[in-house]
């Protein structure tokens, strides 16, 4: 049974994420794949020669857009803000002054972010799936159901792993955005492509192993990335990283000080 205070933080954080300018911006990012699928439909309807079908477009959008861009950027956006917003806004003393273990505050916030972002990504993927695959007939929708489920599960895992990473950075670093960019878009994109063991230190490598798309044109990339580990290993790595970042975040928040003093204060 989840405690009342934890539910309250969860609800408050989720509400803050959805009913805000940030939430609307996130909503805009979610509908881009729908727009792309609609564009493809429009071109086909107009009789324009298009270079791909619905299945391929869906694969590209999930692989490149959702897991390669949307999840990292949204978790960077919201994850680094979870505690940093409270610190910047001076509201942390209200939370830390309450009879609630700080680890629970942190975990409730991360959980709220994960649920909201995963739900948003699922919505985006589901819409894209329907709009793209229906181009190839109703049968394609049924045939791709397994792929869809795999995508949904992997995306949720991606949100959890990236969310934990950026939430931890938001706690640990003075400039979480800078480090988030370096790690999320520099390290992740660079090292995930290198041969050898180093790529296992990225989330992207393991996520690509889990994504069920292997058809062209992304197949080459997929093979390069995923050829050297099994899905079980990838899952274990991702869960391990998520647990590690959450654990480190809990340790940090337990030791954190939250002064309500202002420079002009007494």
């Amino acid at each position: 049974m989840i405690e009342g205070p934890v539910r309250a933080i969860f609800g408050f954080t989720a509400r803050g994420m959805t009913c805000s300018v940030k939430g609307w911006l996130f909503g805009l990012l979610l509908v881009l794949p729908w727009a792309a699928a609609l564009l493809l439909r429009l071109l086909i309807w107009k009789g324009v020669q298009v270079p791909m079908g619905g299945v391929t477009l869906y694969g590209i959008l999930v692989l490149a857009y959702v897991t390669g861009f949307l999840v990292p950027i949204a978790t960077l956006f919201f994850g680094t803000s979870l505690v940093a917003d409270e610190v910047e806004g001076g509201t942390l003393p209200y939370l830390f002054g309450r009879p609630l273990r700080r680890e629970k505050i942190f975990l409730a916030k991360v959980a709220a972010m994960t649920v909201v972002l995963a739900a948003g990504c699922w919505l985006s993927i589901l819409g894209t799936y329907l709009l793209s695959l229906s181009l190839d007939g109703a049968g394609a929708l049924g045939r791709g159901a397994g792929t869809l489920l795999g995508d949904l599960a992997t995306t949720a895992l991606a949100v959890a792993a990236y969310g934990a990473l950026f939430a931890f950075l938001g706690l640990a670093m003075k400039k979480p955005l800078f480090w988030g960019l370096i790690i999320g878009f520099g390290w992740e994109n660079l090292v995930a492509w290198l041969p050898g063991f180093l790529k296992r230190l990225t989330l992207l490598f393991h996520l690509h192993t889990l994504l069920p798309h292997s058809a062209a044109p992304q197949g080459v990339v997929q093979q390069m990335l995923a050829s050297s580990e099994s899905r079980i290993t990838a899952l274990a790595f991702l869960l391990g990283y998520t647990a590690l970042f959450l654990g480190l975040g809990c340790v940090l928040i337990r030791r954190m000080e939250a002064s309500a003093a202002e420079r002009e204060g007494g």
Partner: protein
Amino acid sequence: MIRVQSVSKWYGLVVGVNRISLSVEPGVTGLLGVNGAGKSTLLNLMAGLLRPSSGTVDLDGKPMFANPEALKSLGYCPSPDHFYEDVTGLEFVAYLGRLSGLSPAQARERAVEACREVALGEEAGKKVRAMSKGMRQKVKMAQALVHDPPVLLLDEPLNGMDPPSRAQAIEAIRRWGQQGKSVLVSSHMLHEVEAMTSRILLLHHGKLLASGEVPQVRQAIASRPMNVFVRCADARNLAAALITWPCVQSVSFGTEGKALTTEVTDMGDFRVRLGDLMADRELGLEILNPLDDNLSAVFSYLVA
């Protein structure tokens, strides 16, 4: 009872508070000090937000820092004007009530009650963003009160309030004290604190300077010997007169013989006698300078 034992807090090389020991009894206690005296640091330590560099802060034997068991009995109203701006005052108070373990229904009910306690009235339904400074102060007080804690720490709660609101807040704080809550209120205005209680703690440069009832503290401060530097043409004659006065404890000469430093126990009496002496004799007084600036500043605050 909240107890602070030999607590110090350093920020790097800067001392926030230095070896402070005190306890807060039921009733209202005023925490007085000028800006930078360490009031907010002390309250943050007592609220479990800061970890003491040395010493202990506990509530009924339970350490305060990040300890939910101890925080159950505490309500803290911070000094800075920070809020979740996009919620109403009532929602803000109810949310923090829920974090204190109240059920949603209880939190709503208690939030309404707490807002009424601080005379927030209908304004509680406004968005915090749209509230005046005085109303925001009241919201902060209400959130400290929402879970009905036996210990309240209020950091400059009257800042920014207009006179009627101030009077209402003072009345509320007195009432909580009478109800048996231990209330510690910080301020740099003695008259504000005196309106709530006669019991004060005096903080200066991070140290506890004095504590007790206001008249006692006034007397204690006034009776502490004070060093006064005097420079005049005939210092030896002046010294001969000073040494006979009961308010003078000692006299010492400087190197050049024209200046002396005297230790005075009653500054008022000293001033009267010196005035009379100047009227009687031609001593050529050039400089009269109390050397204990800190003490005189505190003294000024106390008698202001």
